[in-house]
């Protein structure tokens, strides 16, 4: 079977999430693609479904001192500390160029207080060509004594409501995996008005140099990402899918089209590729190609039919 093409694209891959139409379900993950333009020398950005930018704040941020990363088995820890040029600079310096591509742009936004989020969204509302916002709620809440907003359904719902009140574009809320009750968290955020959920962010981890007895990351703790966390991410997507009606974007250890399909079957409508782009810079475009191939091989009509198609009937014996 020959992959159908329209303007060089496979129309079977088109998806809609939170009212945003992506021509395929493969996005870059926040913090793993800079502001998107870094990929320009490598591939045509219009080939992937979307770019989700590095986390933006109202004001520029310096980030953490190095060392900021440490490789771990099938994964890595990072504590970049959200270094970013600020929402205004993004709009002025990056967005015009990004708009030259036919790719959806989600701006990832974070804050330490509700006001931080609202302030950043106010600025981004002016950015023509932004398609939606993704809220990173895995930051310590300065008001609540360092409690992570994303670990507390009430705080997460409050941020969501506040942002929804001012946001001119769809709002996707990104879940922390460091919680015991995904379903409850997902429902709280859905009730607060989120248009979609994305999950998962990184698991909190530590790595220690046994010679110096020092943490290998200056910030002590870091976020664990990469293939190592994929089973946890797939599980959370499955649990969130069972709990809410709004669409999901699956994230966590996705490196190939096969990995992406796993998340779609678990309940995601689209996926983001993060860490894999570091070691395979073409991972996103390869995944797009691979999804077409998967549809061909399995005779699947459209990628949308995969979402939530997990078969829980008893398997045949013997395997």
């Amino acid at each position, binding site marked *: 079977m020959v992959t159908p093409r329209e303007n060089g694209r496979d129309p079977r891959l088109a998806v809609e999430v939170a009212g945003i139409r992506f021509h395929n379900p493969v996005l870059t993950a926040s913090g793993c693609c800079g502001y998107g333009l870094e990929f320009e020398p490598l591939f045509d950005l219009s080939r992937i479904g979307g770019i989700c930018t590095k986390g933006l704040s109202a004001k520029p941020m*310096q980030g953490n001192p190095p060392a900021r*990363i440490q490789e771990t088995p*099938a994964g890595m820890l990072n504590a970049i500390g959200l270094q970013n040029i600020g929402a205004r600079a993004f709009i002025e310096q990056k967005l015009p160029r990004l708009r030259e591509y036919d790719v959806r742009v989600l701006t990832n936004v974070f804050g330490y207080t509700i006001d931080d989020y609202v302030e950043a969204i106010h600025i981004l509302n002016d950015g023509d060509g932004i398609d939606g916002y993704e809220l990173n709620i895995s930051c310590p809440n300065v008001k609540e004594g360092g409690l992570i907003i994303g670990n507390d359904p009430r705080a997460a719902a409050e941020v969501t409501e506040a942002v929804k009140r001012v946001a001119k574009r769809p709002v996707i809320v990104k879940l922390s995996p460091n919680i015991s009750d995904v379903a409850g968290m997902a429902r709280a955020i859905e009730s607060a008005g989120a248009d979609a959920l994305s999950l998962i962010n990184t698991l909190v981890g530590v790595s220690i140099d046994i010679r110096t007895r020092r943490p290998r990351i200056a910030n002590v703790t870091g976020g664990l990402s990469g293939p190592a966390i994929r089973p946890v991410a797939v599980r959370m997507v499955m649990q969130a899918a069972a709990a809410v009606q709004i669409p999901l974007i699956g994230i966590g250890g996705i490196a190939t089209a096969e990995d992406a399909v796993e998340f779609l079957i678990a309940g995601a409508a689209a996926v983001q590729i993060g860490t894999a782009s570091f070691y395979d810079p073409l991972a996103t475009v390869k995944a797009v190609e691979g999804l077409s191939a998967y549809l061909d091989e399995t005779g699947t009509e459209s990628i949308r039919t995969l979402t939530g198609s997990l078969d829980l009937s008893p398997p045949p014996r013997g395997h």
Partner: protein
Amino acid sequence: MKDLAGTVEFNRQLAPRYYHIRLRLSEQVDVLPGQFAMLRPAALAEPILRRALAIHRAEDASVEFIYLVLGQGLEALSRIREGERVDVLCPLGNTYPTESVIDEGRRAVIVAGGVGSPALFMLASELVGRGADVRVYFGGRTKHDLPALDEFEALGCPVTVTTDDGSAGERGFVTVPLERDLALAGREASVVYACGPWPMMARVSEIAAGHAAKCYVSLEARMACGFGICVACVVEVCEGSFAPPFKYQKVCTEGPVFPAEAIVW
């Protein structure tokens, strides 16, 4: 920058834990002195991240690297054999400013520490080729830690060797003959190019400043991507040395070569 397939032409051991690999790339690339590549054996499952290596030589579609195995990633690379495949993202990073040497005729003083030397070889080679006054100071812990010393010597410029244990050249740090050299040459006479361990570069920077010599350092940093998307590889820079005034600069894209005075040592 391209993501290319490299086919191993050779991959031989130079000394305990030191290797020299040559790859034929699927496409020709133009490489500037000081640039680097991110490599890993094709389809390697673990470790996942590529490793940064300075491009030691480049001609036509072949590139060479010299590397010291510290852990799992380069260990895996060291096991790769002729004909096998390596993923190569290259060329990455900036290059050494050479105007003061080429245009103003200053002396080029190249200071290599151990496996920092591959990052300086193309520079030395190019400057010698252009007829500049080049001298090399090459320090290592032992005589085994002077990778590609023979290649530097073959360039025809003066090469001074030091080892911490005296097993080759002068015993002691490479900064000792460097300081002698700069003192003799006089103020503002030299441009120093250094790559090596952090404390060595910090000292070189200080010595160069003391003799009003320009100094460029090629830095290392833990890298995940090598092309600016992870923001892991930062180094702290002095206020005002980069615009806008960001405290942290990415070694992979703003570097790896920095003016020594821009760095918070």
